[in-house]
């Protein structure tokens, strides 16, 4: 049901019946290592190319999420997925393997919550009993496509971010009485494109921060809530630079973010003091692996009851950047609650 301008409240309380987070070696050396389901030591996963490796990550996450949900893939109604690669090939080729009806989406690094919101909408509206939502990214495929060959010795500036190698998947299912323990997708706010004229592709945090704040404000306004109604609000990948800017923007727009814990997945996925990741993590998998690996586990332990995950994406291409365009960004928010909670 639509509430306000762009928020869906899911009155039938669809649940996340299974989720999985699969990552590469650098994420496995990060602070959240214990929360991932699979950590690969070889960044190429024994494949012939980086792209095939990313596809393998996505397939593993999808399969594991289905196992956790206890649902065979034949019962999946739809598979909604996206990634950073041209023509979202990781997702499409994984869809080939899964052989389920496929909806490909592109939201850059906001894809995780974009696809989760759509999955919840479909299940809530009776469009399917189970929908698989997934996304992936890989440091080398992103570097290769957006920036430089991986062995090139260019010096990255301190504002640059490090694309997470990983994949996150979640099965969204119809909520039932027996699901009191499973996380519920309570609501979602879809973002609109915000472009404040930032042109530097090595400073995506600055480009994305306004979109994140815009979506969070819209969500709170539509539901008539304040940040204090949440135990945690996380943005997807603003990282060091974007996070500071977002705090400033919250101050300026008088959003009382201090009422809750506010953090960013790009800052959680790596240890910036030990790992050479400049400003922090980014990539579709950043918000996905932190949410499906770490945050859902904290919810299961009862540490968090209601969270807002706001995945942020920068929608440029190398061509538009070279043509002098600025970077338009978007942020999609999903509110996840503990099964026991009600409005």
């Amino acid at each position, binding site marked *: 049901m639509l509430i306000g301008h762009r928020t869906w409240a899911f009155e039938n309380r669809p649940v996340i019946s299974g989720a999985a987070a699969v990552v590469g070696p650098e994420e496995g050396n990060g602070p959240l290592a214990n929360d991932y389901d699979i950590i690969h030591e070889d960044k190429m996963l024994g494949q012939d190319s980086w792209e095939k490796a990313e596809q393998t990550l996505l397939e593993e996450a999808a399969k594991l999420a289905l196992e956790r949900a206890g649902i065979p893939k034949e019962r999946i109604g739809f598979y909604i997925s996206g990634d950073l690669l041209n023509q979202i090939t990781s997702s499409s080729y994984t869809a080939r393997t899964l052989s389920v009806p496929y909806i490909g989406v592109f939201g850059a690094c906001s894809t995780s919550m974009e696809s989760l919101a759509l999955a919840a909408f479909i299940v809530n509206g009776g469009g399917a009993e189970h929908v698989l939502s997934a996304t992936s990214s890989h*440091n080398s495929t992103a570097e290769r496509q957006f920036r430089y060959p*991986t062995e090139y010795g260019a010096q990255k500036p301190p504002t640059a971010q490090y694309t997470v190698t990983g994949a996150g998947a979640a099965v969204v299912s119809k909520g039932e009485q027996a699901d009191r323990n499973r996380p519920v997708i309570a609501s979602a706010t879809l973002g609109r494109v915000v472009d404040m004229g930032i042109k530097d592709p090595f400073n995506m945090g600055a480009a994305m921060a306004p979109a994140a704040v815009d979506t969070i404000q819209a969500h709170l306004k539509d539901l008539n809530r304040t940040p204090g109604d949440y135990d945690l609000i996380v943005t997807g990948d603003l990282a060091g630079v974007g996070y500071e800017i977002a705090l400033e923007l919250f101050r300026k727009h008088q959003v009382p973010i201090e009422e809750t814990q506010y953090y960013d997945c790009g800052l959680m996925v790596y240890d910036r003091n030990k790992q050479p990741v400049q400003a922090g993590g980014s990539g579709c998998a950043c918000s996905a692996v932190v949410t499906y690996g770490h945050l859902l586990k904290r919810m299961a332990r009862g540490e968090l009851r209601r969270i807002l995950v706001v995945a942020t994406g920068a929608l440029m291409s190398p061509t538009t950047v070279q043509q002098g365009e600025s970077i338009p960004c978007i942020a999609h928010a999903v509110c996840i609650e503990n099964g026991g909670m009600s409005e």
Partner: protein
Amino acid sequence: MTFLWAFVVGGLICVAGQILLDVFKMTPGKAMSTLVVCGAILDAFKLYEPLIEFAGAGATVPITSFGNALVHGALSELERDGWIGVITGIFEVTSAGISSAIVFSFLAALFVKPKG
């Protein structure tokens, strides 16, 4: 003594490159292209050869010497063969650098996979 000047001059040219990267916020490609053009211009004013005399490898190793070599090739052919020399001479002096870069890069691609 040439060793000292090779170190100092080479280092200073690299500092110029670093300033292009950090102060002018150029991408590495733009910065290197700028330095090559600078090398070409310096040779046009007959300033690069004396630098090579003085600093040896400090002037021949940085990418600026590439611009110098291209101009040198063009100008010496111009003198020898007339106007067509401007076209025929350009790659003459730089052949070692470009050819070896192509050959070794190709061999590397045959035997090595990227490590990420």
